[in-house]
């Protein structure tokens, strides 16, 4: 079963994160908060696409549902 720890590692392997938190313990539904410098200057759609890209085929094969909130280091500091 996929754990939130594993999912966190998968994302970090493909995307440099200043901060990442992944919750979810049923193996299928996860919630993530991700702060990455890569998000700077990108739209929300593009930010989520970067996370999906980091996960690659896992998004199709292993992960049923991933809800996420993405922040640039700047927007994260302001919240």
């Amino acid at each position, binding site marked *: 079963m996929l754990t939130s720890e594993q999912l966190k590692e998968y994302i970090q392997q493909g995307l440099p994160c200043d901060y990442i938190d992944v919750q979810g313990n049923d193996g299928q539904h996860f919630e993530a908060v991700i702060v990455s410098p890569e998000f700077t200057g990108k739209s929300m759609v593009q930010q989520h696409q970067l996370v999906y890209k980091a996960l690659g085929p896992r*998004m199709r094969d292993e992960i049923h549902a991933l809800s996420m909130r993405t922040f640039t280091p700047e927007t994260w500091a302001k919240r």
Partner: protein
Amino acid sequence: MDVQERIKQQVTSSPVVLYMKGTPQFPQCGFSGAAVQILKACGAQNVVTVDVLSDPEIREGIKAYANWPTIPQLYVNGEFVGGADIMREMYQQGELQKMLENSAA
């Protein structure tokens, strides 16, 4: 017709198109249900929904169309807006309401 062509026709034929699992009355996934609720809360009237569960070709094709691996997907005036998370965030910031008003939905 090629599935990508079909999708292009679908998303440009109405101002607001939501690809979802199930129907607004009977959504088959929590995220799709949430997307419907958000559009309702925005007062959007003429939303066209496409049930991807009833069309496997569209279900796969739509993921490639927007380079977006998940459903629901919202399109306004033919442009991909986002999935459920982005819809929620835009709704909370009042942006989605504005976008829908301007789309004449």
